[in-house]
């Protein structure tokens, strides 16, 4: 990895250089009812709109690679005959300006299943490979447990990662494109003092975590606690609303629907992100539901993330961003759920 430092004001220049492309980044979205600022990712036209000191966005960046709804194909129907048209809906590169480590790691996890396993998903891959990602460091929020999940820092999956050293940015450069780009702004090699500051910054971050999840032997514990009453406790609270999966940067389950157009000459096939917490998730023809209770569905979400995915890819499908817990109106948070399943009330 190549390291550089540059003055904070150079960042605007970097944005300017990249602004010939579509730039997406964190922007302020007003305040919540307690006056706490809210942020979300959006297309940015002006550097000043970027809120790089953002805490956490309400929604994850996944929609830029996995839209909530996407047309997979369309059909032209002509009497008996028909033709299928496939469009992967990728047309142009996208610059992501200011992504936290957890979200970068989330994309890396999605890659495992969507880009690197059998039948890579081209709709995803095309968008993913056309992202230029500028990572940025963060301060842990009360809901963050990324450290427990080992996703508090990003090792790959970005082009350049910036850490604010106070007045200066420390840049880890991972791609040649990023290297060329930084060549166009005023950059230096880090001094010994910069390195010291960088280490101080990372060490400082570690002190701020308040939430945590104990992951040791979690797969086994989940197996053992399949019948745990804890699931019923949470199941009773769960609204089966799917909010958790929607805000989660790694949930990718979906459903496919096909529709005939009013004119009977066209049809389309659309995919919408689904959630395993929804009642119809595992319903099959004839009405049999493999997971009829909200407890079984909620449990399934944890099994997929913390057990199944680990079994298949040797890492968990959760990055510990805590968004699902924050968004859940019933206040169901992974640290609490997992602690209760482990029997640590």
């Amino acid at each position, binding site marked *: 990895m190549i390291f550089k430092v540059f003055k904070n004001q150079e960042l605007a220049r970097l944005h300017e250089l990249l602004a010939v492309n579509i730039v997406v980044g964190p922007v302020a979205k007003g305040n*919540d009812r307690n006056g706490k600022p809210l942020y979300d990712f959006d297309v940015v036209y002006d550097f000043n709109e970027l809120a790089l000191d953002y805490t956490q966005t*309400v929604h994850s960046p996944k929609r830029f690679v996995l839209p*909530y709804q996407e047309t997979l194909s369309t059909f032209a129907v002509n*009497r008996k005959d028909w033709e299928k048209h496939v469009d992967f809906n990728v047309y142009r590169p996208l610059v992501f300006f200011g992504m936290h480590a957890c979200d970068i790691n989330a994309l890396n996890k999605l890659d495992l299943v969507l880009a690197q396993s059998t039948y890579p998903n081209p709709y995803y891959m095309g968008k993913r490979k056309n992202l230029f990602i500028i990572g940025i460091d963060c301060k842990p929020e009360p809901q963050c447990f990324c450290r427990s999940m080992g996703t508090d820092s990003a090792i790959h999956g970005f082009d350049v990662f910036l850490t604010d050293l106070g007045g200066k940015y420390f840049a880890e450069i991972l791609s040649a494109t990023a290297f060329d780009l930084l060549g166009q702004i005023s950059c230096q090699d880090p001094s010994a003092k910069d390195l010291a500051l960088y280490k101080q910054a990372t060490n400082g971050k570690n002190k701020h975590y308040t939430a945590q999840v104990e992951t040791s032997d979690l797969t086994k514990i989940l197996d053992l606690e399949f019948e745990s009453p804890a699931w019923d406790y949470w199941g009773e609270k769960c609204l*089966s*609303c799917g909010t958790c999966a929607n805000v989660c940067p790694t949930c990718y389950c979906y459903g496919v629907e096909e529709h*005939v157009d009013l004119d009977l000459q066209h049809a389309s096939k659309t995919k919408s*992100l689904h959630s395993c917490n929804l*009642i119809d998730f595992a319903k099959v023809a004839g009405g049999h539901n493999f997971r009829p209770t909200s407890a079984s569905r909620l449990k399934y979400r944890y099994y997929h993330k913390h057990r199944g995915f680990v079994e298949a890819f040797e890492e968990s499908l959760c990055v510990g961003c805590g968004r699902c817990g924050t968004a859940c*109106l019933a206040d169901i948070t992974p640290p609490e759920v997992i602690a209760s399943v482990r029997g640590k009330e």
Partner: protein
Amino acid sequence: MSEQLSYLGVPLARPKVGFFELSSCEGCQLQLLNNEATLLDFLNLVEIVNFREGMSERADTYDIAFVEGSVTRKDEITRLTEIRRNAKILVALGSCACFGGVNQLKNRFRDLEWVKKEVYGDFPIETMEVHPLADFVQVDLSIFGCPIKKEEVERIVTDLVVGKTVRHPEYPVCMECKANENICLFELGEPCLGPVTRAGCDAWCPSNRRGCWGCRGPAETANLTELEKIMHTYGFDSETILDRLECFGGFASFADTLRPKNIAELSSLPAQTKLIPSGCKKVPARRKKP
């Protein structure tokens, strides 16, 4: 217009369709005229044989009868029964037809005489407790919403024509709300019934920054007890919750359980208005298959 319809080589019948209204604002029917861009395709797909709001011709047999509005008078029961007899498929169109709609708010009052007097003074106008269609006839298909969503109706009609089973989303509005990337209204300090209301409207209200009032009725999994707790956690009183839950009649039975707790709070009312747990109550076994 009358060319035989077919899809993928399978011949399809063009259904004869009639639109009817009982007590309603006629908005749901209007929504069908409101689909300017696709109106002509729609008209090609079905044969409209009865649509009082839009045409003079009438016919007495139809494959699909869309019935809007709720039942609030005896003569409407007769009309409804007749429509049922003539129709192969009877569709309850909109929340009034499905649950009683806003009309059933009248049922909050024990004293129907007081209600009549409040509006018409000493002039007697016949009325009765408000009921959804299903209290009197078999309803084959419900289209929820106040108002209905035209895209949804078009999809449903296309599905009926090609013979697909009409499926409503079973999950709640929050799902669609999140997909629209809204910031949850609870976070912004406003109450919302999204977590318990059946989706399918594409989070119409929350996307316009307006809390959901539950016009589409309960989702398959509506966890109302938890919602009540959440509402209180976020600082909304029982009345705010009740206002929304009882507005369209879809949550009548749950609203009933809230209401007794509430009568005390509502004691500032004129003496005549005794509030009772009601909503749309089911009438005993008048339901008959045609």
